[in-house]
């Protein structure tokens, strides 16, 4: 059995788990919830073995020593590892807080990431390490960065849920904020999906697709009519989310999750993620950069964006100490923080150029 079969199995398991967790939310059947948990765990085990197998395969091809064969050297592998961390963190939360409802928010993120890998057609081949990545810092730097990203992803979903549950009126800033955030999130994903489908035949290279064809099928379409219609549809969708956001509130309020628990999970995952990110992402990154490039800090876009992310979460941690900032306002900061994480992780590699560009291969 090779790693790709196991990766396939875990993908199927996570998608199945997503459906079951949502069904569990809708019908409140305990058995459904238990099956969802079991399938998630099975997927997790399969994925763990898949990563270890790929590690072994990489080790045999690369001949670089076991530490440098960690499968974390391109976008595909890092996304897989991100999903792994996310599911692990979720399972920990499920067992600690004895609450399953939250799975309906996390498994879709995992499934979306895996679907993104599949439809974008990114290279899943094992590529030997380029000279810049041949360092033992690779293991700790990349691994810790992704563990913190996964923790931030958890804080994003609980932060968003907190806002959904806590908001009462449609004209309240926090309500507008979360409907806008959720709306834009879905619109961007949908537009990228359309880009992909429209340009699948004409564009060979995945990076090219994102760099020059982003939103070409919709908002940046050459036909002005389509662009206008796209904006109109997007606006209408945003309105719908805003108008019927309360439905989501009703569903989530039905869980046995108190707002205190949501706030607590948000804070705890950031309080864990922030030091891990600081140490693994920034400090170890700086030490490695010092060894490889002769500069521990060179204001490269990736470095700068990770600093921006760091400032967002530092802002979150400090704003909890400020009067009048507890609750909804800090939850908004947590949600925005994860937007910065997404940009640090994907946006920089796909849209900007710089020293960290090997991630986009």
């Amino acid at each position, binding site marked *: 059995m090779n790693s790709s079969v196991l990766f396939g199995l875990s993908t199927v398991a996570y998608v199945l788990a997503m459906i079951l967790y949502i069904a569990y939310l809708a019908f409140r059947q305990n058995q459904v919830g238990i099956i969802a948990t079991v399938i998630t765990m099975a997927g997790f085990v399969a994925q763990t073995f898949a990563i270890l197998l790929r590690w072994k395969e990489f080790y045999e091809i690369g001949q670089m020593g076991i530490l440098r064969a960690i499968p974390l050297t391109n976008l595909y592998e890092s996304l897989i590892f991100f999903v792994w961390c996310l599911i692990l963190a979720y399972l920990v939360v499920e067992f600690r807080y004895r609450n399953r409802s939250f799975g309906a928010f996390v498994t879709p993120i995992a499934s979306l990431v895996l679907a993104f890998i599949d439809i974008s057609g990114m290279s899943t081949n094992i590529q030997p390490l380029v*000279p810049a990545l*041949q360092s033992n810092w690779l293991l700790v730097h990349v691994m810790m960065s992704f563990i913190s990203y996964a923790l931030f992803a958890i804080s994003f979903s609980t932060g968003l849920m907190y806002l959904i549950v806590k908001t009462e009126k449609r004209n309240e800033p926090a309500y507008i904020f979360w409907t806008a955030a959720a709306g834009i999130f879905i619109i961007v994903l949908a537009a990228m999906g359309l880009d992909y489908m429209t340009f699948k035949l004409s564009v060979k290279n995945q990076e090219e697709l994102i760099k020059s064809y982003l939103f070409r099928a919709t908002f940046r379409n050459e036909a002005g009519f389509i662009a206008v219609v796209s904006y109109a549809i997007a606006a209408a969708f945003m309105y719908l989310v805003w108008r019927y956001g309360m439905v989501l509130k009703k569903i989530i309020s039905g869980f046995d999750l108190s707002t205190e628990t949501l706030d607590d999970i948000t804070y705890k995952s950031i309080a864990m993620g922030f030091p891990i990110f*600081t140490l693994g992402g920034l400090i170890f990154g700086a030490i490695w950069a010092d060894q490889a490039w*002769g*500069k521990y800090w060179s204001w490269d876009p990736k470095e700068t964006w990770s600093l921006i992310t760091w*400032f967002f979460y*530092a*802002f979150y941690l400090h704003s909890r100490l400020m009067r009048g900032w507890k609750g909804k306002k800090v939850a908004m900061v947590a949600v925005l923080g994860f937007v*910065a994480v997404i940009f640090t992780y994907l946006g920089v590699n796909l849209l900007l150029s710089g020293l960290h560009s090997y991630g986009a291969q």
Partner: protein
Amino acid sequence: METGKQKTFVDKIWDVFASVKLAAVIFAVIACTSMVGTVLEQNAEPAKNIRILVKFFGESAAPAAYEFFSRLGFLDMYHSWWFLFLLFLFCSNLIVCSIDRLPRIWKLVTAPIHPLTPDHLDKMSIKRTLTLKGKGGAADLVAASLKAIGFKPAEAEVDKDRQFYAEKGNYTRLGVYITHLSILVIIAGAIAGVFFGFNAFLNLPEGQTSSVAHKEGGKEIPLGFEIRCDNFDVEYYGESDMPKAYKSWLTVLRNGQVVMQKAIVVNDPLTYEGITFYQSSFGTVPDSAAHGIAILRAVSRDGRSEEIHARVGDTFSIPGAGIQGRIVNFSPALSVDQNGRPFTYDENMINPALFIEFTGPGQRFSGWIFKRLDRTWQLPDGNRVEFLNFWGVRYTGMQVRKDPGVWIVYLGCIIMAIGLYITFFMSHRRIWVNVSEEKGQSKIFIAASAHRNRAAFERTIEKLVGMLVAGHKGGTK
């Protein structure tokens, strides 16, 4: 702050700098301006950034936008006066707010824990009550159990009751200040690097020596010694053109004497007297193929070998075999097209090959030998010509750096790691246990507080309760 007393202007400024609000504003401003700096390419040619701006502002407004951002220093923003000013504000905020809060926190940290009256205990966040039947022994049990969960309790009498109280990790409240201090240390290290160090580069062709490096803008920096590039080479994965390693063999010379030798690769630089040389790039010296030297090893059938240095056009002989080879042609990257015709596919030395004509008594043959393919080294007559190197045509590009501040930065990083650990993973835990004996039973009241991660401390308290109940039962049997 005392009321009634008029705040002076200095006090007001102090209050602004000591506020968390200012910190939040600075975080936001640094983050937002930095975003602009990552979209606009720093220190790039104007055309590049105008192309980027066209995407945002359209063809017609882009030059004006460029002018606007250029005026504001956004094209080299991390070195602009206003960005440095923001960092300065950030530091001042850190220093002032730490000085402002430290005395109060210090008092809290150093003041020993006191026994408290029941009224005070009632205000604690964690409370448990339990009753143990039977007289005596309860106090000792409490003391022993507290020790078992890691506390060293003191004892006092409060309202005729016996009270045990203890605290742990009171210094963890300083974690935040350690973290703040570490940021200042890192910035101090960065400043030291700017003033006492330099960042330069050096392109050194094979065989050449240099006693200077070049700063951006061309300014020469004397190294204080000489550095020579003996050789540069790229290793590839198998027969593919995927690079595995960029390697430069360097020699450090002082007054003509060799003092150090090292082969550097990416991630493994050479350091001599505080100056570090990093493998950063490489290239071909223009018009150099003509004077490049092919380094070959000719091995005869009977095993005699000899190293040969020859240029294109030169003739060499294989020892004891009576065969002469003449190097006719050189290609930096040779491949074969569909019709079997060789062609050069790259200007860089990716797959170097030599065309050699061999003549001997009664025989004549010729062919390409490749540096990377040792199977092409074998000649049809059983002799062998190994193609070891084509030397003297490439240069190694090195980043040259001196940074005495880097150790201060690393020290700051270590302090930060410690500070963050203390701040987020440790907490100041206090516990009071009141034991009152009445009517043949002991009433035990536990009050406790933790300034962070209360849930974990609550679990410890549950353990303590469990131990008291179990210990009591064990004692009465």
